[in-house]
Each structure stands twice: as C-alpha cells, then as structure tokens.
C-alpha cells in the first residue's frame, strides 16, 4: 500500500529540517504555499543563511534506507506523489506535498478516490450546539459510508472525528505536525483511536511539532482531499475560513451550518452562506449536495434508548436545556424527586453533568 521514492522522501525530511526556519521566514499565517511550491534547492536558497548551508549538506548526505527503517520503526507509512495510493485530488494543488506521512489505515487514501470525502471544520471554542452538530455530521456521514476529514483540533474538529468513529465510519485527521505528534495534547485518546480505526496524515515527518505556518498548510490539504468542505461554526477571524478559501479556490463544494445571526461566534460561517455556500443542517444535506437531491432515502437512524414516559420527558427537558425547576415542572415531579431521577439517568449514561452545572444529553461515543 505504501511507498515513497528516494527524492520524495528526501523532500519530506528536508521540510522537517527547515520547518523552524520557514516559521521565521513567514511569520504570518496564510502565505506558506508559494514557498512550498519551490524545488529543493530553491527552497533552501529561499530560506538562506545558515539554513541554506544545513539544507544543502542534508540533501547531500540523506540516506533513504535509514529513513525508511526509522519510519518502519515508528509505524509510519510514507506515500509519495508517484505512488498509486497518493490521492489524485492533491494534484489540484500547485504545491502538493511530495510525500504524505501516514499512520493507521493507509487504504483510506484509496477509499477517498472511490467515494467522495467531506471535510468538517470549525472553531475550537465552539458553542455546545456546534459541537453537537459536528458530532452528528460525523456520525451521519459515517453511517452513509462517507469519509470524514478534519484537523483533530479541539471543538468542532474533534467532535466530527468522534462522531465518525462512533458510527464506525472512516475518518482522516490531517495534522499540522508529524503524524505521531499529538496536537493538541488533550486529544491523545482521539489520536490513538484514529490511528487504530482511521488514518492520520501529515506533511511533516515524524517527531515534528506543528508551526504557525503549518496550520494553514495543513488546511490546504484538508480542502484538497475532500469533495466538499463544511464549516460548522466559525467566527470572523477563524483559521477555519482559510480552509474554506482553499476549498473555493480549488473548485470544491463549500457548505456551512447556519448560526444565530446575532452571535459573533457564527459570523464567519454565516458570511460564507451569504456568499453562496450551501446550507448544511445535517448529514443528509451534505449527501444531497454531493450526490443530488434524493440520493439518501433511508433516514439516518438515531440511537435512542429505551426509557419510560417520565424519563422520556426528563430527557426531552434536559435536551431543551431547561433549568432544574423547569425540568421538574415539565416532567411533573417535585424537585427532590427530579434530582434523584436525573442522578439515575446520569448513572445510566443517558445524560451527564454539564461541568459543574446542569445536565446535558450524553451522546454515545462522544
């Protein structure tokens, strides 16, 4: 499945060697791509100074066999642009990566050739609503057999991956650092799960930490890999919008989930809608957009637990985010019994504490 020719591999490691200097050279996000389009020698001279000497020395002494042994040891597969597994979609980029460093099920790269994939992105500091929507999107796409691509960031990204994993769907995380570097650190468990049953892809070689420039660079890959990009929630200054820009530039379909008009949290995604992005409410909207209206006939099943009528009313009340007094009134119970009943539902895993405060519906495999 995997393989990389010597020169591509060398290019990948060269990028790793220069990654810190590229950061110093650019300093601001959004502009890495012209640089990444340069050839090895041109890249080295663009970096200049000490970095150039180091780069030239490295190019001369690079040992592909040792690099391959290291990759094998780290459980990382390298797929270069000349290999058959390399996604053709990336060739739309004028600065496609020479090599992709992969951990997990490399065959997912082939799968997105056969069936279109969807990139789901959004802000890290998302509202609970957006988290829920991203999770449902991932789950719905997973059930429909569509690969969900995202960036494994906090907030929307992570929720989309988890949704897909929960539905046993395919999911690809495109990382800004090396494929084995967990970023953000808190997503260690998610990283492990994706390596196990999905795929982690990176442009930088193993061990490389992400740099400021490598996030927009990663965003271009997410946009290119998918047939459609869906922005779940983005503020006006969100990095997510970079992914949306790339998707539009590459001629991919762009969708966005509508947010409340009065909130700043959804200002960016709402602007995309105003500018013509497709309205996405759930996974079936995405399928309609990809395959034409009516493609998905079977409704995506919701996993609903068996509960008695009182508990059902309690669950509905929790879902509507009523406060405790409201929940009690809605369920027709005195408050003390309400507290007790909620504790039981929590124990059953149907609801959970929303931090210190009230309760919220718990979704499976979140």
């Amino acid at each position, binding site marked *: 499945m995997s393989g990389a020719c010597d020169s591509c591999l060398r290019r990948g490691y060269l990028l790793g060697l220069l990654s810190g200097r590229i950061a110093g050279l650019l300093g601001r996000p959004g502009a890495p791509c012209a640089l990444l389009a340069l050839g090895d020698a041109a890249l080295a001279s663009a970096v200049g100074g000490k970095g150039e000497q180091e780069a030239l020395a490295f190019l001369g002494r690079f040992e592909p066999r040792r690099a391959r042994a290291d990759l094998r040891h780290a459980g990382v597969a390298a797929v270069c642009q000349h290999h058959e597994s390399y996604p053709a979609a990336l060739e739309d980029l004028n600065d496609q990566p020479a090599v992709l460093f992969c951990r997990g099920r490399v065959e997912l790269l082939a799968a997105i050739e056969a069936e279109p994939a969807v990139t789901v992105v959004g802000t890290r500091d*998302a509202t609970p609503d957006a988290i829920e929507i991203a999770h449902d999107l991932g789950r719905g796409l997973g059930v429909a057999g569509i690969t969900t691509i995202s960036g494994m960031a906090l907030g929307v990204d992570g929720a989309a991956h988890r949704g897909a994993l929960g539905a046993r769907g395919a999911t690809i995380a495109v990382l800004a650092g090396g494929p084995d570097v967990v970023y953000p650190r808190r997503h260690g468990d998610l990283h492990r799960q994706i390596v196990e049953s999905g795929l982690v892809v990176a442009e930088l070689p193993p061990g490389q930490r992400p740099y400021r420039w490598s996030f927009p660079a990663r965003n271009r890959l997410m946009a290119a890999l998918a047939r459609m990009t869906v922005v779940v929630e983005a503020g006006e200054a969100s990095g997510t919008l970079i992914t949306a820009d790339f998707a539009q530039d590459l001629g991919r379909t762009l969708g966005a989930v509508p947010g409340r008009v009065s909130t700043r949290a959804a200002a960016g995604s709402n602007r995309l809608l105003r500018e013509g992005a497709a309205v996405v409410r759930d996974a079936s909207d995405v399928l309609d957009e990809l395959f034409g209206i009516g493609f998905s006939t079977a409704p995506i099943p919701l996993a609903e637990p068996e509960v008695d009528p009182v508990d059902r009313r309690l669950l509905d009340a929790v879902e509507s985010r009523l406060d405790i007094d409201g929940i009690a009134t809605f369920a027709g119970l005195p408050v003390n019994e309400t*507290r*007790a009943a909620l504790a039981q539902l929590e124990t059953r895993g149907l609801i959970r504490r929303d931090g*210190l405060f009230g309760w919220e519906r718990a979704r499976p495999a*979140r």
Partner: protein
Amino acid sequence: MLSVLASVPTFALEGVDAREVTVEVDARRGLPAFTVVGLPDTAVREARERVRSALLNSGLEFPLQRLTVNLAPAWVRKAGASFDLAIAVGVLAASGQVPPEALEGMAVSGELSLGGALRPVRGALPIALGCRAAGLRRLVVSPEIAGEAALVGELEVCSVPSLTRLVDLLHDRWKPDSPSPRTSRPVGPAAAPPDLADVRGQADARRALEIAAAGGHSLLMIGPPGAGKTMLARRLPGILPPPTIEEALDITRVQSVTGNSSGGLASERPFRAPHHTISAQGLVGGGSRPRPGEVTLAHRGVLFLDELAEFARPALEALRQPLEHGSVDIFRGQVGLSFPARVLLAAAANPCPCGIGGDRCECGVLTRERYRARLSGPLIDRIDLVCQLAPLPALALAADSAAGESSAAVRARVVAARERQAARLAASAATCNAELSAGATRLLVPLTAKASRPLAAALDTGVLTGRGHDRVLRVARTIADLAGRQRVGRDDVAEALGYRAVAPGRTAAG
C-alpha cells in the same frame, strides 16, 4: 516605708481568649519617675500620661516616688490601652490610697480618660470568662460593657463609671448597681431578619438550602445574575437552628474581641459575605498582631462567598484548613494562636462568563471550560451540594400570589432533623452530619442493598469517585433525617447524588 509593692490582675486578648496579666507596681523612694516594663507597646507606654492625669483630675494623689510598673508575664506582648485602669489601681494601692485587702480576688480592665472616666475595652466576654477561669470573684469594667461581662455567671461584675467611684467602691463607700446580663439586642434598627417567604420560585435552591441547613453541608448556588443567590444566602442564618447558649457565647466572644459586639448575647448567627477581592489574610486572619479573618467572624454562622470564581486562588486555598478543622491556627514569631472557624460555607457563581446560562448563552466550550476550571479550584471538593437557580422572568417577580414558605416553617424541619442527628451523634465528636468522619460515616449511615444500588452504579460507571462517595452518604443521611426516616433509602441516596458537586472533567471540547 521605703517601698510598697501592689499587684492587680487584668487581661490581655489573645485571639478570642483572654490571658491573665498581672500588673505589679513598685513605689519606692528616689527621684520621681514612672517606668513601664514587660513588653509594652506604644499605647501601653502612653498609659503613664493618662494615668497621671486621670489620678490628678479625680482629686487623687499621684505619688512623687520612683514608680516601676511591670506587666507579667513579661514575655507576652501587651498592646492597647486596656491596662490603664490596672496601672492606676496599682499606683493607688502602692501609694496607700486604697486598702490593699479590698483588691483581693478582683480584676480590672478599662481605658482611662484624662478626666478619670472609665472607657470600654474590647473583649468583655472573653475577659469575664478568663476571670472566672482564673478563680477571681470580681471584675471591674466600664458601664458600657458590664452587661456583656455579666453574661458570665458566678462572677460579680462591677459597673464603674470613673476612677473616683472605684476608689469609693474600694473603700466600701459606694456600691454599683449590679448590671443585668443582656441577652437581646439593645436599641437600634432592629431589622427583622430576612425571611424565605420573600423568595419566589427557586424550588431547587430552596430544597438545597434546607438540606444544607439541616446537615451543616456546604452549598454552591449556580445561577445568572439577579436570580437571587445573595438573597437566598442571606436567609440561611434564619433557617439554621437558633444558637444554643454555648454557641451564642462563642459568637459573642468573637464579636467582642473584634469590636462588633452589640453589648449583649448574640441572638442570631452571623452572616459574613466578604467581597471577592479579599486577601488570604483577610479571609482566614493573620497579620503581625494576628487578627481574626472573615471565617472566624462567621464562626457558628454562614460564610458566603459570592462570585466564587473571582476569588484569588491563594485566598480559597487558605480556607481549606479552617473548613476542615473548624479552626484557624496562626503562628507569628514565637506565638501560636487558634481562632475558632466553624462555618456553614455557602458560595455562589454565574453559570458561565457571560452569566446568561441556558440556551441563550453564547460562550464557547473552551471559554466555559476555562471558567469552570477556575471555579473548580481549591474549594470544589469541600462543597457538598450544588444547586441551580432559574433566571426569573419579571412577571414572576411582580406576582405576589406565589409567596414561598416562611423561614420559620423551614427552620422547624431543620431543627427536627438536627435533633435526630444529635441523638445519633451523641457519642461522636460531630454535631451534624456534615462533620462526620469517613469512618463514622460508614458506621452511622448503613445502607440496605437496595439503597446502595444507585451509589454502586454511579461508582461503576465512573460518575462518582471514591472521594465523593462519603459526601453523598452524608447528604443522603441528612435528607432522610429531614423526612424523619430511620434508614437511608434509595431515593435519599439518588437525590444526594443529584446534588453532588462534580469537578468538571473533560467535556466535548477535550
């Protein structure tokens, strides 16, 4: 007569206790001088001027002798003007102006004005208690504080307005009226304590308040601004059992040493609500001359921390020990002090930084999480109950139809629950369920298999940690006590589970 020695007992305040200090006055022939030794501070040294003037202005004689005043024990630092009277009496005795035998078994405490009038000092109650403990029969204080001192039985408290009167008393030429111990508040704006009937709605918070009061459990109220968190907290003292005589003495003693005394026995539990900018020292006490902090001022009452998330971490950190031990230990130099600090902790916080909460809130998950992390700081594992307050629509506030239950009705249930606890806890050191130790909890709160099921399930699924387990048991015991049930049932446990505090773990963002 070359020299005469007189000694007069008086008291110095140390924390909320009074330490006996003996004022010795040595008068001998020599160049006239007046020295004070025994670690006096500036105010004590200035006593010389006050004593001299007070004596002369009272028509008494200031001896032209070499006077040495020693305050024993010499290693205790003496501060303030409360030694004036003892020094003056010592000088009178040393110069033969009062019969020495009249001083037998008598302590004095008071500040002097230049005209010879007695001024009140702080800490009348602890001084009187100290007097009784030291086996003294009589205590002379100014009339303002005599009522407070007279709260202590088996002690003759003499209410003396001036030095002249004191000399008359010592010569048996005059007898003061014996002051009546004051047990109620003196004149003043006798504001009726706030009543729970003023609170509309908020069933969840009312229930939590009742459980907290019944078992002495700490409470955290979460609700948007204006929902009535402070209003509810202020009503906590009114539903706690009225203080017993012992507790009232405790409360008065603290008020007395901090100068907040009403002049009589406190009839209500204190309610302290320090602002969130308070320092650790302000909260638990301290300083080079250790002063009690808010937690001591709230002793036997309610300490209310509004905007819990805004308090400085070190301040909350410092609260942990007092909350656990019921006292604050302060060490300064060679002196160790202990202030009492048995409080019911009530705290309040907004549900999220924007304060709106519910489905109108616009805070992102990371923002919320950061806020919760701040809130979950050092105190959250000391909180037994967390309740929620609903934002009240303006209509509900205006409608006067749905008046809540009155404080008196709730207090009756609380008192009944406390009595059940007292019967059960008679043998142990605890006075309410919240004070039960881990061992006592398991011993005194046995669960049937059925009742323990919710707990076991919660432990299994990781909803509850081992640490929270005992806390839930104690609250469940209180809930059963409120309902008058001998045994803790399944519903009691489930309800306690529902009110427990959860340190925020990973949420959707993590």
